[in-house]
Each structure stands twice: as C-alpha cells, then as structure tokens.
C-alpha cells in the first residue's frame, strides 16, 4: 500500500463520515418536520386556498350523492377561483375509522362528515369541531332547517355541525313479489308474520338483511321496541333514565328471535354486510328491506338501476303490534350526516363559507337530482318528483316522533355493546333477558 494511497484513504474517510452525518441529520430533520404541518388545508401556491373535504359517498355505492357533491364543488370552485377543494372519499365504516385515527393525531380535514349526538360527543368534547352557530343564524340558513334536525348536533348550547340529510326508515317492498304470492301490505306484526310465512314457504327470502354491519339489525329492534313499549320508554332506556328491563323492550327482543325462527331474514345474514344483504333485495330475491331514506336514490333517480325495478318498489310504515303502545307515525331515523369544520383548520373561515354554500345547494339540488331528503325544508311544488319520494316526504311530514338510531344516540362504548348484542340476539346467542341485562350494564357504565 503506497503512502499516497493511505493519504487518500484518510481524506476519503472524512468525506464518508461527513456525508453520513449529513444524511442522518437530514433524516432526523425530515422526520421531525412531517406530521406537524399535516393539518389539512393550507394557503400557498399563488394565493390558492386548498380545502380538504372528507366524505362518504363513493361513486360506486352512492352514485347520485357523489355526483352531486362533485357538481357543487365544481360550481364553487368556478365562483371562487382562489379556492381548491380536495375530496377524499371513503366507504361508511372506513370513514368512521379514519375519522377516529385522524382525530387522535389531530389531523382532521378542514371539512368532514359527522353523525349526531353520541357519535359526535367525543369529538366536540375534545375540541375538534368548531361551533357553527354563526352560520345557523346567518342570513342564508336562518330558519331553513326542518325543526329538530340541528338540535341533534347541539351540545352545551352550541351547534357543531350542520345536518344535510333527514332520514326515516321505511320498509321498502317489492310489489311484484307481493303480487305473485297474493300478499297485502302488512299493517300489523301478525300480518307481517303471515307474509313472512308465505314467502318463506315458497322459498323466497322475506326480508333482506346484512347484519355484519349490526346497525342494520338494530333498526328492526328499534322499531319493534317502539311499537311495543312506545317511543318514550325506548328513549328513556337509551339515555339511562329508564331501563332496558322494561317488559315491552324484552318482548321486542323476543319478537326478533321469533322472526329469525320463521326464517324471515335471508340466509346467513349475520355474516353478510349491508351491501350484500341489500343486493338480495336489489336482485328481486328478497321481498322486503328496512332501510333509511338514503337508499331512495336507488329506487328513484339512480340511472344505473333499471326503471322496471324502480317501478316495482313501494314502501310501508313499520307495522303496528297488537296491544303495543307505539304509534304508526313514529319513525326510526333522524338527521343523517352533517358537515363539520375542524377547529384546528388553518382556513376555518373559508371552510365555513363553503359549508354554508354546500348546505344551501344540497338542499335545493339533492331533492331533484339525488333523491335524498335534505335537512333543510323542501319545496315539493317545484320539479317533477318521483312518487315514492313525495309519499315518503309526506310520511315524514306526518311523523309524530323520530327516534334517533340507537348506535348514534348512545355513547361509543354502550353503542358497541348494543351492536354486538344485536348480532348475538339475531344469532340466538343470547336470550332476550340477557340482551336486556347487557344493555343495562353498558348504559350504567356511562361511556
């Protein structure tokens, strides 16, 4: 080894060491940098404001809503050339999960979608949503909402999101199948059971249900509970001032198991997602489907669904139960999703301005274009609305009470117990008595 070579080696060594140090510093610095700025929107790039919006209307499963959102955003961007709105679209369950992950790291999008009451509470208490009262009382939105819709989004006297949907849950039914087996629309539970019996005897799945998602089965329980024990008892049991021990509520649980025993629901429902369950109904294989009015586009406006199918879909109110305390015009439903603005958004004012615009536009266009019932008042006089839609809207106008979906109403932990118990009840893994006890314990725990 020559001397010269050794010298070169030494300088080479310094060079390597220096470079490595530089590299590792860069890594550390870039590591620290990320995460802190990820809070959604930002100003920059020639004064353009980017608003990030996360929603749950994928093109595939909510075609009409998805189209409408894009349309509203396009128009807004055209009117406000300095604003760019980025959409991030997730499917329902994924959306809920992502929202939680983002909140844990304090990186919520500027604008996003939330559900009311118990679902919203942890976010509001964590100071993640900004109050929207100024919009609510502003010139564009004052008195525009259907009474009772924004209240579900209020906590401690402040409203933290603006509802954009109002939902009730009818039982949709396939008129062609009903006609084929000479069935009439059931007005009582006994008639419903007779229809179920007839359909099951002929090998047709009476009711489409995908209970892997669990809230789907919850709708059935909620209705039976309301019809048997009455709206007040159910409400009190859920908020903890009453109890799930109520004999009417236990009877509702046992009615569920009676229906399961009669093969009222499509086969394997506990392992199928709501979409899979729904496809039984959409493919003419099941006769009935209990679901929120957010499904209306599929039966009215969605061009991807054949008109012949849409024409044979009707709906009826959940049947009465003999001797029950419920009311035919009591619905399970409530304001659907609402829009929130993140408290930590750097472009809060711009985000709020867009939300205001969105709610107004959505209120006007969702009726005719998407077939969704908005939370703002609907003028049915204009436009040529599908009959199913108008009928349901009338049903909504006659509503004597709307009981908010249990899993939305309850606090997160109790909601999970409720949902698990629903699956267990439908799967006959618990008795109605155990079902009641588990609910009671979860609600008493208070989280």
């Amino acid at each position: 080894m020559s001397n010269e070579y050794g010298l070169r080696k030494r300088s080479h060594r310094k060079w390597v060491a220096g470079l490595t140090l530089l590299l590792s510093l860069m890594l550390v610095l870039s590591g620290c940098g990320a995460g802190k700025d990820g809070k959604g929107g930002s100003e920059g790039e020639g004064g353009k404001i980017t608003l990030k919006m996360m929603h749950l209307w994928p093109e595939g499963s909510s075609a009409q809503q998805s189209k409408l959102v894009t349309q509203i955003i396009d128009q807004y961007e055209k009117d406000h050339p300095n604003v760019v709105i980025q959409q991030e679209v997730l499917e329902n369950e994924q959306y809920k999960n992502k929202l939680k992950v983002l909140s844990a790291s304090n990186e919520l999008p500027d604008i996003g979608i939330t559900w009311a009451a118990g679902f919203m509470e942890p976010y509001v208490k964590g100071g993640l949503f900004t109050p929207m009262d100024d919009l609510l009382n502003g010139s564009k939105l004052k008195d525009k909402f259907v009474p009772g819709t924004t209240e579900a989004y209020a906590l401690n006297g402040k409203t933290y999101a603006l509802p954009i949907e109002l939902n009730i849950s009818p039982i949709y039914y396939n008129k062609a199948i009903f006609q084929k087996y000479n069935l009439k629309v059931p007005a009582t539970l006994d008639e419903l059971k007779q229809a179920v019996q007839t359909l099951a005897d002929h090998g047709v799945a009476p009711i489409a249900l995908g209970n892997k998602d669990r809230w789907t089965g919850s709708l059935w329980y909620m209705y039976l509970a309301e019809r048997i024990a009455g709206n007040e008892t159910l409400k009190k049991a859920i908020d903890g001032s009453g109890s799930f021990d109520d004999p009417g509520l236990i009877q509702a649980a046992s009615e569920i198991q009676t229906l399961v025993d009669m093969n009222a629901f499509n086969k394997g429902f506990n392992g199928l997602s709501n979409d899979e369950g729904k496809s039984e109904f959409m493919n003419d294989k099941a006769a009935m489907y209990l679901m929120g009015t957010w499904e209306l586009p599929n039966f009215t406006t969605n061009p991807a669904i054949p008109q012949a199918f849409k024409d044979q879909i009707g709906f009826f109110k959940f049947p009465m139960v003999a001797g029950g305390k419920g009311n035919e015009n009591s619905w399970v439903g409530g304001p659907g999703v609402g829009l929130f603005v993140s408290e930590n958004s750097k472009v809060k004012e711009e985000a709020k301005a867009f939300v205001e615009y969105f709610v107004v536009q959505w209120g006007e266009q969702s009726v005719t274009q998407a077939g969704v019932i908005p939370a703002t008042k609907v003028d049915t006089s204009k436009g040529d609305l599908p009959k199913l839609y108008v009928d349901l809207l009338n049903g909504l106008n006659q509503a004597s009470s709307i009981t908010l979906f249990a899993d939305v109403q309850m606090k997160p932990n109790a909601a999970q117990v409720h949902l698990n118990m629903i699956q267990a009840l439908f799967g006959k893994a618990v008795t109605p008595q155990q079902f009641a006890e588990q609910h009671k314990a979860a609600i008493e725990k208070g989280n």
Partner: protein
Amino acid sequence: MEKVMSNKLVIALYVLPSLLLLLAVIYVPIVLTGYYGLNQWNGIGPMTFVGLDNYQHLFTDTAFWQSAWHSLLLALFSGVSLIGYLVIAMILSGNIKGANLLRKIYLIPMLLSSVAIAQLWLKMYHPTNGVLNSLLASLGVHNPPEWLANPSLVLPALFIPIIWQYAGFYILIYYAGLKNIPETLVEAARIDGASAWQIATRIKLPLLREVINVTIILSIVGSLKYFDLIYVMTDGGPNGASEVMASYMYHQAFRSFDFGYGSATAFALLLICLVATWLIRKATASGDTIQYS
C-alpha cells in the same frame, strides 16, 4: 476501506440513521403504547392516569381471553399446517414433473393483498350464491352451512383462507432450504441404499432444522397478531365468535373509543408474542450446529 469500517465513530454514524428510524417508528411507539395503557383515554380528550387498572381489567375480561383463545387456535392451526407445507416443498424439490408450474401456483396467493383474498373468499362463502354452497346444493345438501354467520363454523372458515394465503411463503422458504442441501449428501445416501423416506427424514429434515425453527416462530407470532383478513371478512363477528387479540384491541380503541384499554391490550399482545418467541426458541434450541462434511 477496512480501516474506515473499524473506526468506531464511523460504525456509529452508519448505524445511527437506521437506529434512529427504528427507535422512532418501532420502540418509541411501543413505550408510548405501554404508557397509554396506564391511562383512561378516549383518544381525543385529556388522559387520566389510572395506573395498572387497564392491565388488571384484562385478566378478568372474558372477551379478551376468548379472543386470545382464538388467536392461540390460529397459531396451533398454522403450526400444524407447516408440516403440510414442508411435505409439499419436499415433493417439489424432488425434481418431479411440472414442479415449476406447481411452485408458481402455490406462490400466487402471496401476491394478492389480504383484502383481495378476503373479497375472494367472501364470495366463496356467500350463504346462497357462494361457490361452496352452490356446490353443496348441487350435491343435494338441503341446508348448506352459513359459514361466516355460524359461530361454531366461522373460525375454521377463516383459518382456511389464512393457510391458503401463506402457503406459498412457507413453501418457498422450505424449498430454498432444501435446495441448499448439498446434492452430494443425498447422492451418497442413495448409493448406500437409503429409501426416499429415509433420505427425507434422516438427511433432509435434520439439515433443515434451523429453517424449520424460523418458520415456526414466524407462523406462530404471525398468527398471534393476525388481523387483516378477519377484519375484512367478519369484523370479529358474529358477536365476537371470530374475534382475535388484534381485532379486539382495534375494536376497543377505535370503536369503543377506549384508547387506554386498547393500548393495554396491544401491550399485552406484544408481551404474549415475546413470551411465545422465547418459548419456541427454548423448545427448539439444539446444542450442536450442523456442518456439511
């Protein structure tokens, strides 16, 4: 270059970036998770320190033990299926006809993401339209089982796709291990009149021992923390019948908003995996190292 590499400062500098990354991405979160487990926290609001409450609750939480039992069953099941993989790898390495094609067939599931596999098997298991039940129906079974909705069938129904998913991976490892065994040894045995069975059990298996030990650890630890396919296919349902430790942790933290308890579960899962690894190492350790001579 040798001088550079033996300089302690340089070694430290070379190791530093990846060490920092490893610390930041793996070890710090582990410590933090353990710490979160000591708190009552909904993930958003303020934390309340509750000491070991969450960990104590784990011991009495039947739902957790049920999920741990399911994870253990999966670990046993995948442990046993390693034997099958090994047999297949032995056959494939034996220069049979079409071995190349078969090897590719076994490997394909490895190329698919878990979610795609889950969707595929969801279709297979569909109670009315699924391939499986249609087949059973055509064979005259009147009431084919509801695979994913039946609490007593759901676990085996989930284990099969998991085994299928990982078959290629383990077969590949075994195959590589077998190909590493010098042909001369096998030839010598053959000349001495050893049967194929004798060659497999007396020569190939002992020489493959280290590889087998590694796969046992991989498959058991992998099973204990398994999550994705189960999450997509059943979400732990119906009513917890297919809940495993990882999905239980996820549900506690992200569904019930109980991050403290979820973190405690995660930490317990880590400890269980560490103990399992240690036990397996203990059980499979051998004093003598193998030398090809």
